[in-house]
């Protein structure tokens, strides 16, 4: 196999590049933005694989995953949910096969460059539909929303990420990747609404009631691997009786993160975003138990990894290392930044 070294002719590659660019709608995404898209694709793909778990093909999926989210929602929201729940309950194999295939296809299509835009666009209505019919709007309207356990619903974050990571002109100046597609003002407003809503949910529901947090952690800890159960039980003991204090700390943290993207000081912005990453890591392990991945009924990795992905989308771009390359240069589409 080892013979003379010679470059492979790039004629075919050049023509492919042209067709790729036309398929991608004029923007060939590279570098950090493409990495974020690929992470999103990977999470969608993982969701699809999780949806293929054997238990999902049984009535348990409708009864244990869908049904509990209906309670407490206004009838205008709950009635269509009940209708969808009935269909899934009656046809668990057919409906779950469709759900799994759709999520698998979304993940693969986002990773496949010519269909990235199409897949991102398709993921938005799909996410909204699942958020409504499958997650009951993440408990936003029934008082069950808690940022620690998964509010406002993991799936709506997929839609938000699809919008923010839409292929965009990477040669234009932007303070962070999320600003490229929708503009800095809109991107900052979306961030403010998301993290600002966390402040509201922390205090509006019963999340600061005595024993609420430790109870949630204890509930999640059962049937997990021993080391994780141990960590979660330890966390439950630590938080027991300190719910109000924890809520106040979290409220301040969320408020700081929410307004951080408006701050003119990049270092302070980064500090708050780093705090957001630490928050994501802690709740993913201690409260969300990796999305319940060890339980056999997880449908997604929960909100923490998606929030972390959002943080990276809002991470300030260093002006000096910003990838400003000509879209006509082969290097600009072949490699990274």
């Amino acid at each position, binding site marked *: 196999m080892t013979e003379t070294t010679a470059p492979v002719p790039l004629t075919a590659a050049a023509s492919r590049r042209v067709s790729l660019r036309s398929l991608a709608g004029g923007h060939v995404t590279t570098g950090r933005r493409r990495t974020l898209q690929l992470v999103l694709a990977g999470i969608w793909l*993982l969701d699809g694989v999780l949806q293929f*778990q054997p238990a999902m093909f*049984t009535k348990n999926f409708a009864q244990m995953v869908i049904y509990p989210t209906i309670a407490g929602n206004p009838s205008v929201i709950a009635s269509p949910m009940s209708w969808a729940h009935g269909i899934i309950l009656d046809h668990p194999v057919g409906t779950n096969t469709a759900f799994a295939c759709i999520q698998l296809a979304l993940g693969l299509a986002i990773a496949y460059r010519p269909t990235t835009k199409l897949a991102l666009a398709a993921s938005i209505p799909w996410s909204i539909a699942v958020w409504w019919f499958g997650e009951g709007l993440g408990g936003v309207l029934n008082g069950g929303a808690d940022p620690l356990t998964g509010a406002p619903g993991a799936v709506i974050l997929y839609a938000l990420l699809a919008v923010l990571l839409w292929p965009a002109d990477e040669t234009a100046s932007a303070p962070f990747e999320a600003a490229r597609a929708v503009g800095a003002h809109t991107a900052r407003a979306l961030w403010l609404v998301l993290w600002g809503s966390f402040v509201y949910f922390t205090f509006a529901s019963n999340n600061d009631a005595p024993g609420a947090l430790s109870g949630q952690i204890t509930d999640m800890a059962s049937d997990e691997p021993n080391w994780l159960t141990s960590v979660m039980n330890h966390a439950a003991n630590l938080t027991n009786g300190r719910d109000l204090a924890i809520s106040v700390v979290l409220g301040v943290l969320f408020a700081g993160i929410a307004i951080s993207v408006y701050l003119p000081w990049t270092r302070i912005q980064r500090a708050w975003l780093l705090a957001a990453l630490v928050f994501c890591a802690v709740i993913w392990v201690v409260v969300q138990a990796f999305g319940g991945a060890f339980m056999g009924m997880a449908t997604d990795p929960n909100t923490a990894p998606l929030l972390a992905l959002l943080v990276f989308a809002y991470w300030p771009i260093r002006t000096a290392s910003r990838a400003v390359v000509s879209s006509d240069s082969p290097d600009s589409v072949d490699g990274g930044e």
Partner: protein
Amino acid sequence: MAQLTPLWLGDLLAAVVIATAVYCASRIVYAKVRHRATHDDADGLHVLMGVAMAGMLTTHLADLTPVRGTVHAAWVAVFAACTVWFGYRAVRQRGQAPEHGSGTIVHLLGSAAMLYMLAVAASGGAMAGSSMSGTSGAGSARLPELGILLAVLATGAAVLILDRITSTVSVATVTAPATVSVSRRVLAPRAAEGCHLAMCVITAYMLIAMFA
């Protein structure tokens, strides 16, 4: 058990991995006959993985991958050897361009995942509804953290493969070893990447299904 598990899914995926194995075997033969370049070790790994995975996925081919005995030990030895080989190659390729080393990492991942699944099957935890079930149940798999990690890595590898297939750099330059001559262009590189992709996704599914 049959009511709880999608047996048809196992049969379908078994058909896919067998087709992949047959295709990869034919690549090796065709390349030898026509003097075309291939990644023989990668194609060989896919042949082995396809046969072993088919035995795990469907009860119809359970004899291919028994959970105990000499044949099981042979499979463990084979995939241990594959893991060592691709680990060795990955170490040797350190410092090379990512496109040359990343394929080896994917194969190392596939070999390690097969070893893990064989070990879990032997210890009693296995895919519900598969030929390797019988004592399955939530949490029965040993070291589930490693299984989840391998599944996440497999999905990540699948995504990277798809991105690489459609990156604008020539596929031939991506998949061919750095020293392959023009006269020996790599045989059907996109089809080879398709095999990697199929194996990665199905491996991820099998790893996840072990916890169900």
